[in-house]
């Protein structure tokens, strides 16, 4: 690690410092022009850093946190069984599986619907704070955390898909019927918003701070 840092001081040259921009789609390097241009190879709009990355990511995270509350309080499904209607929230669905003995399924749903969204929001908040307060702490690990949030976020859609399948299959009137609740809507919104939040964060900001203090 110590050796690495010495190497960095002499060889660290970023695209930005060299006056180049890396295209976020095709990774072609092109000359940095003052106005926003397009990538000569693939036509995507190129920018040295994602625009207003910190402000946008904060806005999306706050929105996700707000929607996360109704997503967990409101029922995601209404199950009718022989005339009785039973509302279920995400947590009561998990508890149902624990009681019915299938704890591996309970664990899968808990990880996908509760653990992953919270972990993702927490990681993004830590990353944002670390960039804003110019922490020098473990940039490699923070970059890894960012890659992790990008990879795991989509798995939260699991509960939405379970609800879709249940609703599609079980509609036999008063005998057995499952309908989707408002909670499912809010939960879907949370998943989509956090996916956009991860996309709007620019991991290069973590490294910009490190370079600036090296100089």
């Amino acid at each position, binding site marked *: 690690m110590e050796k690495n840092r010495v190497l960095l001081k002499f060889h*660290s040259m970023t695209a930005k410092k060299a006056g*180049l921009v890396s295209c976020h789609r095709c990774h072609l390097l092109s000359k940095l022009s003052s106005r926003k241009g397009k990538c000569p190879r693939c036509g995507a709009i190129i920018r040295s850093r994602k625009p207003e990355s910190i402000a946008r990511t904060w806005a999306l995270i706050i929105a996700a946190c707000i929607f996360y509350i109704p997503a967990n309080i409101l029922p995601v499904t209404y199950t009718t069984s022989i005339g009785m209607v039973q509302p279920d929230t995400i947590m009561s669905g998990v508890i149902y599986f624990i009681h019915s003995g299938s704890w591996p399924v309970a664990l899968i749903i808990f990880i996908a619907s509760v653990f992953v969204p919270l972990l993702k929001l927490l990681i993004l908040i830590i990353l944002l704070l670390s960039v804003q307060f110019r922490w020098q702490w473990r940039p490699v690990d923070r970059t890894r955390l960012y890659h992790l949030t990008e990879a795991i976020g989509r798995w939260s859609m699991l509960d939405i898909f379970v609800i879709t399948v249940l609703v599609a299959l079980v509609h036999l009137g008063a005998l057995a019927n499952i309908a989707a609740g408002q909670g499912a809507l809010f939960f879907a919104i949370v998943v989509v918003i956090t996916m956009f939040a991860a996309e709007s964060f620019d991991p290069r900001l973590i490294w910009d701070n490190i370079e600036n203090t090296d100089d």
Partner: protein
Amino acid sequence: MTEHLIACHACDLLHRVGDVPLGGSACCSRCGTPLYRPKRDSINRSLAFTMAGVIFYLIANTHPFLGFQIGSQLRETTLATGIFQLYQQDMFIIATLVLFTVVIVPAIHLLSMLYILVPLRAKMTPTFLAPVFRLYLMLKPWGMLEIFMLGILVSAIKLVKMATIIPGVALFAFMALIFVLSAMTVTLDEHLIWKKTEYS
């Protein structure tokens, strides 16, 4: 000079990328993010998986994936009827989201791969290679078939105490489709495709 340089997508550090041996990968020396990984026989292999994918996709979308039976009442559902049920319940946003992530995005992935790979294999360059491949990359995180598959399994477990669950043809097509689609993505050499646009 510029062509041989690549900037790390995660930390912006410039690297000079030489020849990377097959099976190896070039990673950023500062943050470890993989930058480039050459693939063996990429166009042929990806195209083969794409074609298999198209077949499985058609089966998966036209046949019932689960049957649900209580007594004499049997209910079979295809993907389309499931999404239609959600629309009927006024869950417009969720229905659209499922339609998008499970039906539309995989279809665009398969079609765009066909559009790009068939001409490239015949040593031609498709006219809209760059915008089509850009669309493909943009939609990559939004294809959620594998998560949907897990969703089917979880709901089957949930319903198994309530009624008899009959796995349908589409269920097996879905499983095959997931493997074929990920094989298609893994064998695709993105760098090579972008290289092809430079000579058009």
